[in-house]
C-alpha cells in the first residue's frame, strides 16, 4: 500500500506512518475517553451494559468537573471523546460539554438512542462542533422495537435519523441484535437503505450488566447467525460504495476471544456518571477494584498509578493457558470481565477461547439459550427491562 519513503525534505508520497488505534506500541495513552454522562435513560433496553445497580448513583459530575476531565485526558493524548450514558441527551448541559470538548481539539462522538433529539438540537450540536452522531436502533419492526425498547420510540427515531443526515453528518446507525430480532436483519438493512445510512453496524449483544441477566432470552441460535451472516454479506456486496455494513460475529460463537478494549489500561478510559474511572465500562463489577474517582485524583494519577488500571497491564498477571500462549499479544487473553463473570476469576482466560478449560461454560450458555427458546412462549422467562425499579429490586437483594 505504501510507496516512497519519507526522507527528510524529500517528496511526500508515503502513508507509511499511517496506523489505526490498535497498535500496542502506543501503550498507555488514553486515546479514547468514554464519558458516561448519566445513567438516566428514557429507554429500558434489556441488553443494556450499564451496571444492574445503576439506580444507586444519584450524584452526577457537574459541568465543570466533566470539562476538567476532558482537559486532563486531552493533555494526556486523548483524541476521541464519546458522549454516552444512559442517554446523554438527558444532560441539559450537553451542548456546553460538546463545545468545550471540541474547543480542546477532541473528535466528538455522540452515542444516542435519538430520543429527545430534534432537528433544532442537531443543529445546535453542529454549531457547538459535534463531529459525529451514532443513532442506535432496537429493531426494524415497529412492534418489536417498542417491545424491546419498552417505549414508543420508533417513529421518532426515523425522523431523527433524517435530521442527522439533513445537518450534514454521515449517518451511522447501530443495531444491537439478539435472538428476538436477528431474524429481521433483512428488514433492518432495508430500513437503513431507505434512510440513506452511510454506515451500519450490526452488533450482537454482549453479555454484561442487564444483558448478562437476560442472556438465556437474548442468545441467538447458530442457524439464526448463519442466516444473518449470509444476508449481511449479500447487502455488503450490493451496497458497495454506498452503505458500509459492519457485521460482528458474536464472541460466544468464536474460537478465540476478542482483544477486549485493545488491552487493559491501554487506550480506553471510561468515566462513569459519578466520576469513577474505569478501564472499561463493565469493569466496575470486578472484585478488588479500588474504583478511583476523578473528584479525588487527577486523571493522570488514575491512568498511570492506580491499582485498577495496572491490574491487567502487560502479561504478568496471566494464568495458563494464556501465559504461555503464542497468541496472547494478539488478544490479551480476551475480556477480564467475561472471565470473571463466567469462571469467578478475572485472571483466567476468557472462556470464549477454545483453549480455555472453561470453554464448556460458553457451550452450555448457548445450549441454555436454545432450551429457553424451545419452550412454549408462555413458559419462557420474561425479559427483565433496565429501569430504576428493577435496578433497586435486584441490587437490593
Amino acid at each position, binding site marked *: 500500500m505504501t*510507496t516512497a519513503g519519507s526522507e527528510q525534505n524529500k517528496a511526500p508520497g*508515503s502513508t507509511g506512518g499511517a496506523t489505526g*488505534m490498535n497498535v500496542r506500541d502506543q501503550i498507555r495513552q488514553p486515546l479514547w475517553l468514554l464519558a458516561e454522562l448519566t445513567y438516566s435513560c428514557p429507554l429500558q433496553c434489556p441488553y443494556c451494559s450499564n451496571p444492574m445497580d445503576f439506580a444507586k448513583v444519584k450524584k452526577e459530575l457537574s459541568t465543570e468537573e466533566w470539562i476538567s476531565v476532558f482537559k486532563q485526558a486531552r493533555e494526556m493524548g486523548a483524541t476521541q471523546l464519546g458522549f454516552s450514558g444512559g442517554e446523554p441527551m438527558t444532560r441539559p448541559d450537553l451542548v456546553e460539554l460538546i463545545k468545550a470538548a471540541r474547543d480542546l481539539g477532541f473528535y466528538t462522538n455522540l452515542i444516542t438512542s435519538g430520543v429527545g433529539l430534534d432537528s433544532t438540537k442537531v443543529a445546535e450540536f453542529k454549531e457547538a462542533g459535534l*463531529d459525529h452522531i451514532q443513532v442506535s436502533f432496537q429493531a426494524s419492526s415497529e412492534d418489536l422495537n417498542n417491545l424491546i425498547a419498552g417505549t414508543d420510540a420508533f417513529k421518532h427515531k426515523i425522523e431523527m435519523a433524517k435530521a442527522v443526515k439533513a445537518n450534514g453528518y454521515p449517518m451511522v446507525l447501530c443495531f444491537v441484535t439478539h435472538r428476538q430480532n436477528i431474524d429481521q436483519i433483512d428488514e433492518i438493512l432495508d430500513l437503513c437503505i431507505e434512510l440513506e445510512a452511510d454506515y451500519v453496524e450490526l452488533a450482537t449483544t454482549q453479555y454484561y450488566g442487564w444483558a448478562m441477566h437476560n442472556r438465556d432470552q437474548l442468545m441467538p441460535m447458530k442457524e439464526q447467525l448463519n442466516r444473518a451472516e449470509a444476508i449481511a454479506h449479500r447487502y455488503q456486496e450490493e451496497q458497495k460504495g454506498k452503505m458500509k455494513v459492519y457485521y460482528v460475529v458474536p464472541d460466544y460463537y468464536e474460537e478465540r476471544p476478542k482483544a477486549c478494549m485493545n488491552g487493559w489500561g491501554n487506550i480506553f478510559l471510561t468515566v462513569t456518571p459519578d466520576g469513577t474511572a474505569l478501564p472499561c465500562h463493565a469493569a466496575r463489577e470486578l472484585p478488588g477494584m479500588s474504583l478511583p474517582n476523578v473528584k479525588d485524583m487527577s486523571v493522570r494519577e488514575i491512568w498511570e498509578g492506580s491499582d485498577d488500571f495496572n491490574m491487567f497491564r502487560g502479561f504478568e498477571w496471566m494464568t495458563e493457558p494464556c501465559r504461555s500462549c503464542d497468541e496472547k499479544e494478539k488478544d490479551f487473553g480476551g475480556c477480564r470481565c467475561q472471565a470473571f463473570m463466567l469462571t469467578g476469576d478475572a485472571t483466567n482466560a476468557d472462556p470464549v477461547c477454545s483453549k480455555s478449560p472453561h470453554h464448556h461454560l460458553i457451550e452450555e450458555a448457548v445450549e441454555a439459550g436454545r432450551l429457553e427458546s424451545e419452550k412454549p412462549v408462555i413458559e419462557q422467562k420474561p425479559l427483565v427491562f433496565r429501569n430504576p425499579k428493577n435496578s433497586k429490586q435486584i441490587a437490593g437483594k
Partner: protein
Amino acid sequence: MSEAIFKADSVPVLAQGYRFQWEPAQDCNVLLYPEGMVKLNPAAGEILKRINDKKQTVAELIAELKVAFNGADLDDDVYQFLEEAHDNSWIRAE
C-alpha cells in the same frame, strides 16, 4: 489497477467526517474520523495539510509542494498518495 481518480485539474478535499490536525501528544499530524485516528508520516501530513488548508487543484498543490521542497520531482508520489488516500476513504475529488 482501476482508473485514476485524480488528474491535474481535480480538487481533492477531505471526506465527510474526517478532520486533520496536529497532535502534540503524538508529535505528528493525524486524521480523525468517527471513533478512530490515522497517524500520518511527515510526507502524508504535508499533502493533507494543504488539502485541508484550501481548495486547490492537484496541479496547484504539487506546485506548492515543489516550492516547499526545493523543486523536488514529486508528481508521481503525490498522485500515488492521493489514490491511496482515496482508497482509504480519507479524501474525495471535487
